[in-house]
């Protein structure tokens, strides 16, 4: 099945997330599996204020892209197609923000 990255943009910092949202995150893998998908990997990021940027060898204060809603995490799912991926990504708990779904480049080569 094709893979998709789900990028979570959230205005509420991780430490201020209500417990039920965190619980939902924990339950998400199971819900994705129930819906016929698979959660492959997940990353939760510290707030953008902790980021450091390296550009052209020069080190500066981050983040590279400033947004009202921080990129708070990324997870990778397997889904049948975009509609399936959207249905799975829709279950992501978000307090104030959005999720973005992006197909991953498939480097696998069949000769």
């Amino acid at each position: 099945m094709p893979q998709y990255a789900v990028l979570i943009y959230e205005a509420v910092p991780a430490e201020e997330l209500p417990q039920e949202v965190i619980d939902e995150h924990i339950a998400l893998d199971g819900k994705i599996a129930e819906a016929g998908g698979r959660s492959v990997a997940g990353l939760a990021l510290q707030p953008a204020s902790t980021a450091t940027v390296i550009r052209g060898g020069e080190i500066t204060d981050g983040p590279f892209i400033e947004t009202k809603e921080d990129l708070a995490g990324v997870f990778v799912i397997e889904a049948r197609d975009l509609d399936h991926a959207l249905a799975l990504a829709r279950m992501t708990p978000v307090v104030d923000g959005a999720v973005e779904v992006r197909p991953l480049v498939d480097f696998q080569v069949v000769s």
Partner: protein
Amino acid sequence: MLAATVRVTRDLDLAEDAVQEAYVSALAAWERDGVPDRPGAWLTTAARRVALNALARGKTLRTKLPLLLEPEAVPSEEPETIPDDRLRLVFICCHPALAREAQIALTLRLVCGVATPDIAHAFLVGESAMAARITRAKKKIAAAGIPYVVPDRSELPERLDAVLTVVHLLATTGHVDPSGEQLVRVELFERALDLARMLVALLPGEREALGLLALLRVHGARAATRVDARGRLLRLEEQDRSRWDREAIAEADRLIVRSLKAGPPGRFTLQAAIAALHASAPSYAETDWPQLLQLYDVLLRVWPSPVVALNRAVVVAMVRGEDAALREVEALERDGRLDGYRYLPAVKADLLARLGRHEEAGEAYRAALALTGNEAERDFLSRRREGLR
């Protein structure tokens, strides 16, 4: 035919190439053997075979291998799956993951078969820009894996709404070309009408598809009278009702009744009902304004759009007077969502003129003119403004 071929290839470009090749081989084969009984089926079969061969040659074998298991039909008759295929194609083209402009361009290109330069021309975009837009959209369909399916029951209403919106946009672009000199761009409107008919035929139980077709039928019925012999825009009260297409209006009425019987009306059905009520009035003065206002109230509930609120204000003027209507228009002005929308100052100007407040009306006409690119509309507003004196 393209639709049926995409089902085999799962790849729009490959399917397009295959269809082209099928036409070329048809020319040779039909010259040799005569035209077959079912040329459409012949072409579809040929295109599928070309596509399958291309797939087998490994051109796009990578992820598509399992799809070859699709039974390779050599249909002896027009395949029953074709309507379904067309529907899938429409839903792919109007997928909400695509930008609206891309949805419109893809629908015209792939469902209606309009050539890219013609689409570019219709939307006043350069040919290469339009070609790039279409290519980008096709790439996204392939890369993101937008599926070639009719959405299931739970998603259908939302997804169908996106399709109907695209068709309606096509029709209104055909109706008032936003910046060209010509008021009615017949061709786009005809395409939209064809699409609406197709949707009703393929999804006979969908109330909003019926509603959209009804709406377009009424619009089409009045198209010839919207301008005078010199191409000048005429208001509803000035139009020659005897020239309205009664047949089309009657069909719209039947469609609306069918939709209403099937359940609570959506926005297209309500808009159709409003248009049909206008169309069935023997004269402007004899229009059933209170009934119209009721319809607008319901419409505003199911579709709380400021444009609807503005149109409703016009009806409020007929039922409750210009002062009441003006208050609603001013509220919309403060709301800000219609900033830059040319019909807001135009409606305001008309109300002010009717109230005898000519100076303010002139001001509002000037504001409307500044926002209007369409020649026929500009001329109309200028004449209205001059009429104040």
